[in-house]
Structures are given as structure tokens and as C-alpha cells.
């Protein structure tokens, strides 16, 4: 038996197909979830994919956060359901207050698409167990609103509790405070990051690297061994 991993499609979601493919590539069963359905179809974990839900109007993630599917996800995430938010998904998670802080427009005010070097700071989350803490990976990054901000106290807390999950290396591409590329909640089941692991699962396309596959194998192993 393998694990069922859901990928949510909001109006304006773009990377749902890629995320479904990444789930399949890792060996799990991909399940499409629709924003209007409260029903999560008994999935074992959820990916909030990248894109521009509701056009990123108002604020990235602000409108999607109030969708019916999010009601269930918010509730179940608090009870331990593994949730990975990629890019727009990360933005939705902060808007939903499942993760602290907020996302603002890149400090250079342009959309940025590049191959980005990251350090995985912790292997202690549901989505990073297949990496070692300190491991460096390179995966695509592409966003307009990628600048992570939070007040000093929150930042200190995140650092102290080992909840900064990913940090930008070489270049901070958007002005994120303390080079933060992604964070986790205290329980380690909810993880959000701006770069795109789902775009780095096959050597043929994208940047030609597979550094992102570990996110999906991590969760699969955790679920299957559970």
C-alpha cells in the first residue's frame, strides 16, 4: 500500500500538474483536490501548489485562504495532517496563520525566476526527513511576492526552535529576513517554502537536477512506515 497525497487546485493554481507528477515520481498516489470541496478524499498528506491563486489579487494567498477546502485543511493540519506549501502554497499557509509571518513583494520589485541554492536546515519535518541537516540543494525559484517577513521576536523564536527549515545561500533573491526560504510549524507537519522542489524531480526538464525529489520521498516514507 502506498500513500495518497492530495494536491489542491484553486482558481489560478499553476503548478498542480507538476506537483501531481512529483508525487507520482516519488511513488505515491496523487489525488487532485478542488478548492470548492471540503472533502479531502481521505488523503494522507496535502500539497498546496504554486501559482497565482485568485490572480494574487489583494495579497498572494489572501483569497484562497478562505476557500472551503482550506477550512478542512486548517482544521486537520492543526491535528497533524502533513501539509507542504510551495510558493503560493506557502503564502496561503501564512495567510491562514498555520505558519507565522507574512510574504511581501520581492525587494527588487521584479518577478524572479532562477535556479536557487538552499540549505536544508532541518531533517526533522515530515517533508525533509530524506535530507540531512545542512545539506545544500539547488532547485528553481520563481515568484513575485517572496520576501518573508516577521517581527524580531517571531524570527528569534523560529531560530531558537529550529523551525527555519530552508535558507537561501549565495544570493538572497527577494530580501527575505535572515535569508529564510522556508519554515515549519512546531510539530513539523506543516512546511512552507518559496522555491519549487516539484520542478526538480527529473533530470530532463527544468534545471536538469533532481534535488527536489527528497520532499516527496520523505513524506512517502513517513506515511508508509507509520
Amino acid at each position, binding site marked *: 500500500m502506498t500513500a495518497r497525497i492530495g494536491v489542491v487546485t484553486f482558481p489560478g493554481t499553476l503548478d498542480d500538474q507538476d506537483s501531481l507528477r512529483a508525487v507520482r515520481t516519488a511513488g505515491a498516489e496523487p489525488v487532485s483536490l478542488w478548492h470548492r470541496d471540503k472533502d479531502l478524499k481521505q488523503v494522507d498528506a496535502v500539497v498546496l501548489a504554486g501559482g497565482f491563486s485568485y490572480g494574487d489579487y489583494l495579497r498572494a494567498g489572501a483569497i484562497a485562504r478562505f476557500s472551503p477546502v482550506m477550512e478542512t485543511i486548517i482544521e486537520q493540519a492543526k491535528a497533524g495532517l502533513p501539509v507542504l506549501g510551495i510558493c503560493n502554497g506557502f503564502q496561503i499557509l501564512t495567510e491562514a496563520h498555520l505558519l507565522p509571518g507574512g510574504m511581501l513583494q520581492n525587494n527588487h520589485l521584479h518577478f*524572479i525566476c532562477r535556479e536557487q541554492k538552499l540549505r536544508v536546515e532541518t531533517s526533522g519535518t515530515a517533508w525533509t526527513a530524506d535530507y540531512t541537516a545542512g545539506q545544500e540543494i539547488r532547485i528553481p525559484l520563481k515568484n513575485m511576492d517572496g520576501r518573508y517577513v516577521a517581527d524580531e521576536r517571531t524570527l528569534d523564536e523560529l531560530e531558537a526552535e529550529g523551525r527555519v527549515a530552508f535558507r537561501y545561500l549565495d544570493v538572497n533573491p527577494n530580501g527575505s529576513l535572515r535569508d529564510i526560504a522556508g519554515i515549519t510549524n512546531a510539530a513539523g507537519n506543516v512546511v512552507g517554502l518559496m522555491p519549487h522542489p516539484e520542478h526538480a524531480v527529473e533530470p530532463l526538464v527544468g534545471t536538469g537536477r533532481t534535488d527536489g525529489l527528497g520532499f516527496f520521498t520523505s513524506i512517502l516514507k513517513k506515511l508508509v512506515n507509520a
Partner: protein
Amino acid sequence: MTLDTVKHASETPEAEQPWKELGLKEDEYARIREILGRRPTGAELAMYSVMWSEHCSYKSSKVHLKQFGEKVPVNDAMLVGIGENAGVVDVGQGYAVTFKVESHNHPSYIEPYQGAATGVGGIVRDILAMGARPVAVVDPLRFGAADHPDTRRVLPGVVAGIGGYGNCLGLPNIGGEVVFDACYQGNPLVNAGCIGVMKHEDIHLAKASGPGNKVILYGARTGGDGIGGVSVLASETFESTGPAKRPAVQVGDPFQEKLLIECTLEIFREQLVAGIQDLGGAGLSCATSELASAGSGGMRVELDTVPLRDSSLSPEEILMSESQERMCAIVEPDKVDRFLEICEKWDVIATVIGEVTDGSQLEIFWHGEQIVDVPPRTVAHEGPVYNRPYARPAWQDALQADDANKLARPADAAELREQVLKLVSSPNQASKSWITDQYDRFVQGNTVLAMPEDAGMVRIDEKTNLGVAMATDGNGRYAKLDPYTGAQLALAESYRNVAASGAKPLAISDCLNFGSPEDPDVMWQFAEATRGLADGCLQLGTPVTGGNVSLYNQTGETAIHPTPVVAVLGVIDDVTRRTPVAFAEEGQLLYLLGDTHEELGGSAWSQVIHDHLGGMPPKVDLEREKLLAEILISASRDGMIDAAHDLSDGGLIQAVTESCLRGGKGARLVVPDALDSFVFLFSESAGRAVVSVPRSEELRFTDMCGARGLPVTRIGVVDGDEIEVQGEFSIPLSELRTAHEKTLPGLFA
């Protein structure tokens, strides 16, 4: 104000009408009266004026474009040719690909962000209307001088608009061009292209047949966007602003378009439409008249049912509105409910606005009163045709006589080195990544090659690895020197780029950007360029599947360089065999394919070093281009080369610099005995490429070239961390990288 009904028009034949303000000529207005046997109503006048504008009717270019349909190469790939929203070619395995390039030049000058954004939106809807899922976009761009203050206004806005729209649609941007030249100062060129993929059986046409079938308008509400935009902005230089000529700008909503795409694809999957058309320039006027004209019957539309954003719009304005993100479908009555259901699922507003009739007229009603009663063909397909006078410009001979080969050349190795650095850092030759990094090239997870590769390439089947490639090229400097040759050089370069990536060129689309057709000099350039392109396509075996003409790109008396942009589409059976441009393997041998002549006319060197434009452009030999392409494709398929880069503007040194920087490896170059080092580095002879060959493949590769008669010269080896031209100079890669990459951020960041 009383409604100008058909009845009212018949009763008031002498009423004054603003045909002139709407851009119609006196004889055109007379012809409308003759067709109708009465004066047109206001709504009819609005329809004819937009549909007979240069932009919609191609009235000045038609007689020349005809050649693309007459000189058609034998090519089984063509499934749908010129005349539809976009052409369709067969790429094998049951797949068909549709692609097209369009211009949004004038709107982008007025409002760079929205102009460029809606340009992307428009071309994507064209592709969607063919039944295809859009899979990638490209954006050939031309701006004024890089350091001109207005370029600082226009370029960042255009780039943000293309990115803002395309990124939000989830379409990878896989290629394009950025060219700076003072001739585009008041007339930047913003061309946008899109590729779509479908199965053969999914091809849809813009045609309304089947009496009783419903006409459904779906997508955004109709507002006052771009009213008069089509006839005014595209037909006249926008300096002459009359009363009706306010630059009403269209504003795009990419989120709405994304919903429209997904909704439409779902509708296609369930086979719910009998005909479909996007709403672009001329809005409902265009969609209803084209659908009705292409179909067998007539059409009746209740215009007051159109959902409005602004309730004060008059019927004329509704007909002319260019509100974005709208489509029009013809649907059998028993499929309407399901159609509307899918629209509801995607939060897309859909309204039945009329039906197909068994008559022959397009009839439009406003609250029960008839305001339009016209034969649709006369609006959509039988507009005026002009055979405008043209003549070789008086200055052409002097321009060609001003030979660039006679310009002062570098005196010594130090100066040669300095000129290389100047060249690779000049705005036209510098890295474009400050721009292309604002475009998402990864989305959809199928991008195999994207900038700065020679061609963009996407996988279209995950199981078989079937893929398509596209490149766009155009060199206005060459075309200015000789438009016939210039158009063929654009074709040849684009064709070569596709082949260099390992894909087989199949067909082309073009975007022809020129000055005013009322100027005989410009008209000659246009005639020559189209003749060159048609002849070239015939010889290369690549049919023209469609394209776009943008005229009146001029400020006062000064026209832009004639700028035919050619997009070549190629197919590759197995994308794992693609050839990148990067020299990445130390020790591999570098070979130059093709012949190098002393050809500096129109070259980047002549522009950068001497600010000169004169002489003749490089010669074209299309048989040679074909042979080169065959060799590049075979070599990629059989694994004989690891990298290839075509040679074009900037010549050999530009290509080698790009390939070295991309791969992060240096090169040692040896000037071939027969060549002078300056000519070796800077000449822009066509029909050439440089390839990187693993040592184990050297014999096999050179034997193949020898056997097929393609000149092949060993010019060096991939090695170290500098580019060294033996006996002349060397430049560290780091220095080259800084020179190449700092220019655009320096100007625009």
C-alpha cells in the same frame, strides 16, 4: 438620442455620419452604402470601420501575403493553413501543434505594461481557439536606443507586462529577442508568440453552422476598453489625434484568462462546441462577423444580453469594445446546459447572446429593434484591398554602396581584444537574463530548453519524449540594407537555431513590422521582404502557417527598419537528444561548420564600433542552410556532438563567448590559415554553427560532414578558464562574464 435602427437608416439616407473620424476613406464609405443599398446604421458603421481597418482587413498587405498561399512547399505536416486563428501542423504520434506570433506595438508604447500584457493575452486566446492547450510563449522585442530615457520607461514596463501576464497564466516563456536601435524610439515592437498542442481530432475552427445552434459569449464582462483602438491605434500614426482617437487602453486580467483557458479546455474535452472564436481586436464585431462569414448560415444576436461592466455603453461601443478575456462559442442547443455548467465551475460568466439562422445575414438587435443587417462576408472577408504603389527607395543604392567591409579595423591584437569586450557588452549582444529572469520558464514541468539556448524546447508527451522547439529571429539592419535578403536571413537564422537544438524545422509563422504602407519606399520594403520570405520558405520546405502584419510603425516621416520577425517551429522525436549551447566538457574539440567570408555589412561589429549601417547584408544560401540543419540534426540524434551554437549577429566570437559562459569553461581558438583573425571573429556570414565534439566522435563527425559536402574546420578545444585566440589575445572568463552580464542591469535595474 434615438436609436439608429435599420429602419431609421433607410428613412434618413442623408444623415451625416462620422465615417472619416472612424478611419474610413470616402470610397470605402461609398462602398458600404452600395453593399447595403442604404446608409449604414451607426452600429453597422462601427463594425465596418473596425473590420476594414488595416489591422483587421490587411488591406495593404493582402496582395503580397497571397504569395504565402501560392508558393507552398510540399510538406505533409500542414493540417490547417493561413486564414484560421492560427495554422496547425502535424508533429506525429497523433499530435498537432498550432503556433503564431502577433504584434502589440502601438498599445505598448502608450501603456507599456498593459499593452504588452494584453498582447500575450490575445495570442494565447488565438491558440486556445484552435482547440489547443497553450504550452509556451515567446516574445520578440525591439526598443529604441538602450540609453534613451524613454527606453527606461518602455522596456521595464513591457517586460513586467509580459511576465505579469504570462507568468500568471502558467505558460513557460521559452524564447524571444531583445534588440535596441534608435529607429524604434517612438515605435517599440512588442511581438508575442504562443505554441499550443492538441490531438488531431481536437482541432476547432472559427465557424458558425447549424441553424438553431446557440451563440455563447463567455469570459469577462464587456467594458469600454480600447474602443476605437483597432481602427485608430493600428491604422494611423497616433500623433494625429482626432476626436474619436483617444488612446483607450485595454487592461488585462490574466487570472480571468487562466480560468478561461481551463474552462475552455474542459469544454473541448466534452466536445461541446461546434465552432469557436476568441475576441481580440474589434471584439464582438469581429467574432460575430467572422463566425457567421465562415459558416453556412446567418446569425442573429441580441446585443442587449451581453453582460456589461459599464451599463452606459451604447450598442456601437459594445460592438467595438476590445475588453479582454472573452470568447465566443457556437453550441448545439442540447449541449448548452452542460456548457454553462462548466463555465459556472470555473467562475466564468457565460451568456447565450444569439443563434445561428438559416438565413444569410448577420442581424443584431438592441432591445428588440434591429440595428445591424449585413452580409457577414462583406464585413469580415471582403473588405477593401489596396494595391499600393511601391518603388525602390532613391537612397537604397547609396546605402548599399557605403561598404562596411571598408571600415577601419583593429590595428593590433590589443585593439582586437578591446573590440571583443566592447561587442559582447554592447546592449544588443549582452546577456538578456535581467529580462528573461522575470519570466517563468519552468512552469508546467516540460521545459527542456529555454533562454539562453538557441531555441526553446518543450516536451509534449511524457511517455515518448516527443517535443517541439521554437526560435524567433529578425534583423532589421540586414533588412534595411536589402529587404529581400533580410527576410531570408531572418528565416535562415530561425531555422538554423531550431536545427542547432536538434529539432527538425517544420513550418513558420511571421510578424511583419513595417512603417507606413502609404509611403512607396516602405511598401517596396514590404513587397521585397514578403517575396524573399515566400521564396525562402518554398526552398526550405517550411510553409507559412499564419502570421501578423503591423504597419504604420513610424514617427513622422521616419519609418522603423523593415523588421520581419520569423518564428520557426520544429519537432524532435526524443527530447533527451536535444543539443544545448553550453561548452561543458573540457578537452572536447570545437568545429566551425560552414564558410566564412568577409561579410560585415549590417554586422554588430559595424554598429558597435563604428555606429555604421551600410553595404550588403551577408549572402544567403538556403541549400547550405538545409545541409547544415541536416548535419546538426543527425549529429544530435546519433550523439556525435555535445553542444552546438549557431553563428549570427556578433559572429564567431559572440557565439563562442555565450557557449563558454553557459558551460563555465574556457576555449583555446586557432585562427584557420585561410582567414584573417578579424574576419574569423567578427564576420557574420550565414549558414554557420560551432559545435563541440567528444574526441571519440571526431572521425565519425568529420567524415559525415565530408561525405555530405559541408565545410568543417577544426578551430580549437574546450579548455581552461579563459578564451584564448592563439597568437592574438586571451580574456579570462570572469572578465567576459562581467562584461556580458552587467550591461542590462546597469541600464534598467
